[in-house]
């Protein structure tokens, strides 16, 4: 696989605070990556370092095969950070023209990219008249101007209303479908779950996990159960080595699997033992549950 960004032992200290601690990971071409972590976990700092606006304390990173300078590499990268930053007194088209000048791209791309984000009819309106959602879409158009190898998005849906969030996600999906590599930093787990194939989880500047989203926790899922013979079921489950942790919330019993087992096998087994289930659902943890589990484990 072709690497796009390689980070080795990157560390950033702000005085006594270590924002990023010995971080290493690689971004390969064609995948959609998420950087996941609570607020203040070092996501934006990491992106700031690779985007040349924050100075690293130690470690190193390189773009592509390592033979391009960061300055040149950034011309092949599209990035938006935290909030859309443009000149308020310029129109959308003028702002994009400025970005074209910086990136050395032809002006003809402007209309095309404004069309992608649905702002073509507002192109001659001043940036300061835009709503936050429109500003964020303009930022995406700006990041796409150079047809980047990789698109970096830092909290792209922050502060948007549901329609805005939906629009942005739709645009991201369309871009990903075109084969553009995407790196998405977010603290919104379902966002990462919906969009990303790979994930890097950070907490307090340290990497907790990096790899495929679906392999994040080696879990076989869990059963949610209800029955009239509540206590008998509990006893059975506790005796069975197939099950690990068991959680009880009033009527509902949640039993976590230690090894794979299908719902029908389980149902049959219970029936043979004379327990009739009134409720049986087999589920895998959502990313949110996996994430909390991951961050919890590390705390202990």
């Amino acid at each position, binding site marked *: 696989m072709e690497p796009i960004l390689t980070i080795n032992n990157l560390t950033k200290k*702000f005085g006594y605070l270590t924002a990023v601690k010995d971080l290493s990971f690689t971004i390969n071409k064609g995948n959609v990556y998420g950087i996941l972590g609570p607020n203040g976990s070092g996501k934006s700092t990491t992106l*700031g370092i690779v*985007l*040349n*606006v*924050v*100075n690293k304390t130690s470690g190193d990173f390189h773009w592509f095969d390592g033979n391009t300078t960061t*300055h040149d590499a*950034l*011309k092949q*990268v599209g*990035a938006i*950070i935290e*909030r859309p*930053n*443009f*000149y*308020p*007194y*310029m129109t959308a088209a*003028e702002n994009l*023209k*400025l*970005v074209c*000048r*910086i*990136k*050395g791209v032809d002006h003809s791309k402007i209309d095309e990219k404004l069309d992608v984000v649905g702002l073509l009819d507002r192109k001659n309106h001043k940036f300061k008249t835009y709503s936050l959602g429109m500003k964020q879409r303009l930022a995406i158009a*700006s990041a796409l101007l150079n047809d980047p190898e990789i698109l970096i998005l830092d909290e792209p849906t922050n502060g948007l209303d549901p329609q805005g969030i939906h629009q942005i996600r739709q645009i991201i999906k369309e871009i990903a479908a075109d084969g553009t590599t995407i790196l998405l930093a977010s603290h919104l787990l379902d966002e990462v779950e919906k969009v990303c194939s790979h994930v890097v989880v950070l907490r307090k500047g340290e990497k907790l996990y990096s790899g495929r989203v679906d392999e994040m926790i080696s879990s076989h899922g869990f059963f949610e159960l209800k029955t009239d013979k509540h206590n008998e079921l509990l006893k059975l489950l506790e005796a069975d080595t197939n099950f690990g942790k068991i959680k009880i919330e009033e009527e509902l019993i949640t039993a976590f699997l230690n090894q794979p087992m299908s719902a029908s096998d389980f149902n049959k087994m219970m029936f043979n033992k004379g327990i009739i289930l009134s409720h049986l659902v087999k589920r895998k943890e959502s990313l949110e549950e996996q994430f909390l589990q991951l961050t919890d484990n590390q705390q202990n």
Partner: protein
Amino acid sequence: MLRLVKLELQKLWLNKVSRILIFVSFILPFTVLVLSSIKINFFGFFTLELGELGIFNFPIIWHITTFFASYFKFFFAIVVVSMIGNEYSNKTLKQNLIDGLSKKEFILSKFYTIVFFSICATLLIGLASFFIGLYYSSYTEVSIIFREVEFLLAYFVKLVGFFSLCLFFGMLLKRSAFALGFLFVLYIFEWLIFWGAYEALGSGDLAFKVKNYLPLESMYKLIDQPIQRIVMTKFPEKTDIAYDYAVHWYEIVIVLGWSALFIFLSYRLLKKRDL
């Protein structure tokens, strides 16, 4: 280089306030110059014609126009500090860097714009002085016309130096108003050094020599005040008011040195800073 200048000019030109300020800083000295060169009749009481005083004679005209025109540099100074302040307050500095402008290019685009503006201002004042001089001057021999054109060079260096200082203050303080305020602080600071030097060396002349090395004073010293010279031409027999008003090479070197230092420090500051 052209790319960087174009970049900055787009930022400035589309901003209404800076466009007006640029206009004013070009038009105002020009207008004042033209107005002062025409005959003004004060309701029939008397006519004022500054040309009659001989101030538009070659070569003194170069000295006079550049000296007075340099006061209008404050308008563009506001543009310079706000072109840094705005980049910080709009966070567009960060965005520019992410879009692929290097920190060096960012500073250079500002510096080239300063040089570009200074060239334009120098050319404009140069041409205006030339034509007004041709009209009024009692002497129009080529050798006399082009004597002392070094005042134009001094004017150019003075502008570049002053705007570089503003650029540095803008980068240092990130806010336009603070940067302008700091110019005043520096002015007082230079007088404090003068006072300190006076106490230490015990002589006003020596203390002035020290002060001549400081940024604002060295820029001011490039073009000495011409009033005394005008008086000198009226009373040539009074030799005690004679003074050295020439543009010296070392004065230019000092100001260029300061400019280089300010630009370099601005770059260092930006390089060290986390945005």
